């Protein structure tokens, strides 16, 4: 696949799927502010995915709605982390923390991409993503230093989620060209920046950072291999569109 398309599909699909998952907290948040926070981040992420699908459309791919609503799971390039069900709040918060730190650093790096249309979008998104990282940090620090139960649950969520988070950085065949053409700094460099960034926050909590060398990354998502949770999500998300693709709503 063309390196631009390869990179853009991964970025856009991550945003769309996590955006949808975040929206599932609408009406269910543990407190009103968190209900609003996850719903707002859902809206941001859908907006971000639309910007990225528009770039794909300008490169000759189908309309954003068609790309978002008519593909099945094997055609999606998101990492498996983003498709997991929202579960308990400890998991959703930990996923949000691990993913959005990577996302903020990713778009900060993309702001100087050799592909100017992507750099423009990145310069817009990076400011918005700071609020996502700020929100995640606040709650990681609050719950990671709270009661014994809170710390135990957050530690359990961290241990469970980290192998999936490592799957964010799964590379594709296009990786060498993505780096050499200046499109992006590459997943390995991003991962090392990410590790530094999350370690700094976790050090301010009672949580232990597991040894990443002992973990096996959950890969496959970038190649269309997904958990059983993605297809039902797509079916629900596309229900109205598939009933009537011309509906105005």
């Amino acid at each position, binding site marked *: 696949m063309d390196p631009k398309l390869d990179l853009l599909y991964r970025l856009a699909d991550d945003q769309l799927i996590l955006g949808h998952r975040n929206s599932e907290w609408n009406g269910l948040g543990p407190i009103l502010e968190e209900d609003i*926070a996850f719903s*707002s981040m859902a809206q941001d*992420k859908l907006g971000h995915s639309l910007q990225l699908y528009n770039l794909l459309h300008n490169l000759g791919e189908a309309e954003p709605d068609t790309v978002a609503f008519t593909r099945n799971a094997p055609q999606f390039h998101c990492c498996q982390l983003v498709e997991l069900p929202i579960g308990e709040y400890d998991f959703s918060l930990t996923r949000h923390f691990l993913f959005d730190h990577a996302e903020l650093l990713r778009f900060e790096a993309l702001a100087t991409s050799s592909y100017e249309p992507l750099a423009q979008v990145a310069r817009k998104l990076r400011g918005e993503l700071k609020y996502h990282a700020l929100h995640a940090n606040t709650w990681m620090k609050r719950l990671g230093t709270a009661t014994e139960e809170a710390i135990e649950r957050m530690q359990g969520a961290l241990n469970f989620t980290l192998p999936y988070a490592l799957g964010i950085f799964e590379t594709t065949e296009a990786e060498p060209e993505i780096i050499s053409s200046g499109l992006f700094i590459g997943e390995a460099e991003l991962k090392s920046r990410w590790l530094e960034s999350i370690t700094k926050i976790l050090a301010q909590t009672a949580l232990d950072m597991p040894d990443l060398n002992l973990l096996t990354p959950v890969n496959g998502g970038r190649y269309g291999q997904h958990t059983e949770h993605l297809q039902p999500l797509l079916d629900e998300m596309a229900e109205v569109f598939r009933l009537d693709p011309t509906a105005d709503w």
Partner: protein
Amino acid sequence: MYKAQILDWLQAVKDPEIPTISLIDLGVVRGVEIDEVTGTVSVHLTPTFAGCPAMDYMKRDVERTLLAHGVPAVHVDISLREAWTSDMISDAGREALRRHKLSPPPVLGNQVLDLDFLEYAECPNCLGNNTELRTPFGATLCRAVHYCHDCRQLFEQFKPV
């Protein structure tokens, strides 16, 4: 001469959710061009936040307003060519936000958008800064919720970005 007239007409187009501020003072209007031959007016808009659901309404309101003033054809495009930052809000715009009891974002200048910036807000009631960020997400994507310790009131801020 004519362009000044267009900008003047556009002052009447307000943010759909903040009726005190015009799109021009908000910094959402990034440029106006007039085709001297056809008379078509092109207006360039950029969203405050990438996922802003009000863009279609803003586009519609710009078109309606100019057509109502007799402009023969209006073309509105929305792009991120010149990405919006909160520093694009004019001084008049900041006053307009205060009138709506929204705290205007602090001016960033060349400084980095760090935590100190995101957490700072001026209370729109007492104009003091004995305030605290309660949540970076509010009723719309562009608003955060803060608390004033002097007024003992929650208030909303237009987020710096």
